[in-house]
């Protein structure tokens, strides 16, 4: 059961009656008894909650940053009208609105309510409970009950780097020799012969074919197709660190007005996105690009166990499958198991492929974990390591003026020196390295892929 403000108001008005009553003690008793009677009557005539039936309809997928509506159908098979408020409880990061809904279902009818979800975090969001408070005819008290109406919404990675895709595809077409400028295709795979037109590179004239055809014929080339790209996402502790500024506001961030100490807020900027999310964004762009370029894309997420594995997807369904697989992955607060990761990659990639390892260039983790094992990988595959740099470190490194800032700059330079050292060590092993700021990592990784493709190294 639940009371309303009216019950309290009635009791307060009763105080006035008591004040002027000739027998105040009896008046108090009378008011309390009357109130109790009214409340009991209200409870008896309120619509029952237990027989209510609920069902849901609507979307099950939403991209992070977008909203989705979920319909809740309330069916009242009971003999009395159910009138009151309803709360559809979701986890806070599901961003369910409104918090409470008015509900009025006559007996034997059903009503449809809608809840809008604006998630602030990736992953699966399960509906928790539906609570209904059904008020009696007097509005003094009501019955309250809770139902569980299962539904889950999967919040997908937003794929913000989609905006880079047209530009990268244009670059890809240039490689393909299909570009209107008739630039000679830079691929390495023989495609076809065609007639020479003015502007073609004379070096690509196929003299033997020209001799047969009595016309000048040029060879066209295209980039290799049907290569394999294996994207490996490191979900260990280093991927939990937050960098940059979150493009979509986080649920855990307090609102601006709540920050009392402005100076403190300025010194400690709001945490951005985890490296993992930036890496996912880059992986999605790479996957989209590689799928268009005709390569096969596999995906592996690993820290100490296989968190996700996606293989053999059709090109048209690759992206949707990929975001679906990525959605529930969270960074685990454990040191990544590099030998296990290398073994998992070797077990899955039988043929030579491009292994794109999305991790962090953390000196200790790299030196103890991955570096000794790299020869195993790079002897059979082409390895590309992509890491998200921290813009905060770059900002600290350029700090000058006070001694404090210079000390911070020295610390930042120390870290950057370590990263440079690791990068050069990796390059010496024949590993490609992409180290870019969060906003640029997707684009930089796509460029690196295109460069490898153009050079025919896949």
């Amino acid at each position, binding site marked *: 059961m639940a009371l309303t403000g009216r019950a309290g108001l009635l009791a307060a008005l009763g105080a006035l009656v008591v004040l002027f009553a000739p027998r105040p003690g009896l008046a108090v008793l009378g008011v309390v008894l009357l109130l109790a009677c009214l409340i009991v009557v209200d409870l008896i005539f309120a619509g029952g909650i237990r027989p209510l039936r609920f069902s849901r*309809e609507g979307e099950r997928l939403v991209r992070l940053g977008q909203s989705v509506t979920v319909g809740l159908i309330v069916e009242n098979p009971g003999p009395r009208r159910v009138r009151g408020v309803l709360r559809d409880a979701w986890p806070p990061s599901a961003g369910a609105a409104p918090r409470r809904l008015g509900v009025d279902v006559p007996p034997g009818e059903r009503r449809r309510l809608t809840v809008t979800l604006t998630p602030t975090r990736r992953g699966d969001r399960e509906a928790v409970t539906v609570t209904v408070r059904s008020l009696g005819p007097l509005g003094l008290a009501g019955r309250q009950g809770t139902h569980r109406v299962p539904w889950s919404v999967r919040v997908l990675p937003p794929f913000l780097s989609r905006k880079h895709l047209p530009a990268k595809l244009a670059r890809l077409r240039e490689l393909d020799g299909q570009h209107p400028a008739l630039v000679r295709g830079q691929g390495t795979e023989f495609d076809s012969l065609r007639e020479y037109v003015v502007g073609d590179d004379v070096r690509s004239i196929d003299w033997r074919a020209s001799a047969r055809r009595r016309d000048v014929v040029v060879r066209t080339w295209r980039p290799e197709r049907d290569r394999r790209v294996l994207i490996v996402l490191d979900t260990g502790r280093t991927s939990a660190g937050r*960098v940059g500024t979150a493009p979509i506001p986080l649920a855990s961030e307090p609102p601006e007005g709540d920050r009392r100490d402005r100076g403190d807020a300025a010194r400690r900027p709001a945490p951005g996105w985890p490296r993992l999310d930036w890496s996912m964004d880059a992986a999605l762009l790479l996957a989209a690009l590689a799928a268009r370029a005709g390569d096969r894309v596999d995906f592996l997420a690993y820290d100490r166990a296989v968190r996700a594995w996606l293989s053999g997807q059709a090109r048209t369904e690759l992206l949707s499958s990929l975001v679906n697989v990525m959605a529930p992955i969270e960074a685990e607060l454990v040191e990544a198991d590099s030998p296990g990761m290398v073994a998992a990659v070797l077990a899955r990639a039988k043929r030579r492929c491009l292994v794109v390892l999305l991790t962090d260039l953390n000196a200790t983790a790299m030196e103890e974990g991955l570096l000794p094992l790299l020869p195993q990988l790079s002897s059979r595959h082409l390895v590309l390591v992509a890491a998200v740099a921290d813009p*905060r470190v770059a900002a*600290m490194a350029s700090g000058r003026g006070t001694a404090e800032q210079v000390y911070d700059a020295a610390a930042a330079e120390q870290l950057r020196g370590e990263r440079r050292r690791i990068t050069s060590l990796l390059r010496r092993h024949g590993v490609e390295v992409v180290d870019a700021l969060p906003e640029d990592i997707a684009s930089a990784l796509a460029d690196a892929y295109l460069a490898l493709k153009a050079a025919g190294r896949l």
Partner: protein
Amino acid sequence: MTLQTAERSFSVSPTARGIWRRGRAIVLVGVIVVIAAVVPVLLPSGSSGGGALLDPGDSSLVGSRALAQVLGAHGVEVQRVDDVATALAAAGPDSQFLITESALLTEQQAARIAAAPADRLIVGDVRHLDVLAGGLTAEIGGTPSRSRSPECALREATLAGDAYMGGSAFTAPAGSTGCYPSGGKPTLVRYVADGRTVTVVGDGQFMTNLRLAEDGNAALAMNLAGAKHRLIWLVPPAQSDETSEPGGSGGSGGSASEPKTIGDLIPQGVGWAVLELVIAVGLVALWRGRRLGPVVAERLPVVVRAAETVEGRGRLYRARRARDRAALALRAATIDRIAPRLGLPRTATPDEIVTAVAARTGEDPEQIRPALFGGAPADDSGLVALAGYLDTLERQVQDS
């Protein structure tokens, strides 16, 4: 109509039976606790325990109804008085106050009683003894009560013989009579002050219903309390409806003369209205306190900024004033950045770098060498200056 209705909804509210089944153990424990708390309180009050100590109207073991009745049978008028004003009004030369340790007097009341023209019989550990019986001091610590013999010339005591005495021993003023000594100090003292006979007894147990029949207790009590025609027996003010049992003259006359307090002027209804408001506040609290559904907990990801380790290292440098390490890091970074621009290999020696930088920028090599390969700066301002100079060098190399 519905797209996916495979999953059925079901109620998760507890049913009345469920609530009872889950809560009955707690209710049972609560009932046991209440019974355990209430029964010991109720049981002794049914027999004899809760009596009023040395009260002439109380028939329990600690009361003194027997003494009061015997005194009344011997023609002594016993007045049971529960407020000092009535007692003072009744006081006269032919009367005696009986002040026991249960009569809780304030110092002013004690002084007024001491000033009244009546004898005083003070029994037990009475407060403000110094006011009621001036010149008398009680020994600290007291003595155990037991049957003692009079060992004095006081007629009342010698007639009575042994009595159950003890409690406090006293140092009597000059000219007084002390009886029933304990360790040389008397536990009963009688002396005359301002024409009034003051009798002080260390322990009042000999007057209780329990002890009255033992030894010569009854005789001693009769002799002491029945010394005057009228005995004004002071008892603590009654809390409840039993106003005055034997002497009915108190009560209304005393309170009517007192000035009205603010509490008397407020109408009776206000208190009840406040009670009603308290009920209203309680209802509002129930209204606001009832949550619409459970609190939803969520497993949140950890929020760690990746730069925290770097900031921590910076703070460590700062705390330890690690200028050597800071300078080393800054120099290494500058050399790493300018060496490729100068076309130098990674393995270039300091001499080659200094020469190349000097050639490119036109700066003095003697100034460049300590900046790139010197020792740690002497102080923080030196470090700041070094960082600035390294920036300048780098910019010059890049711009040239």
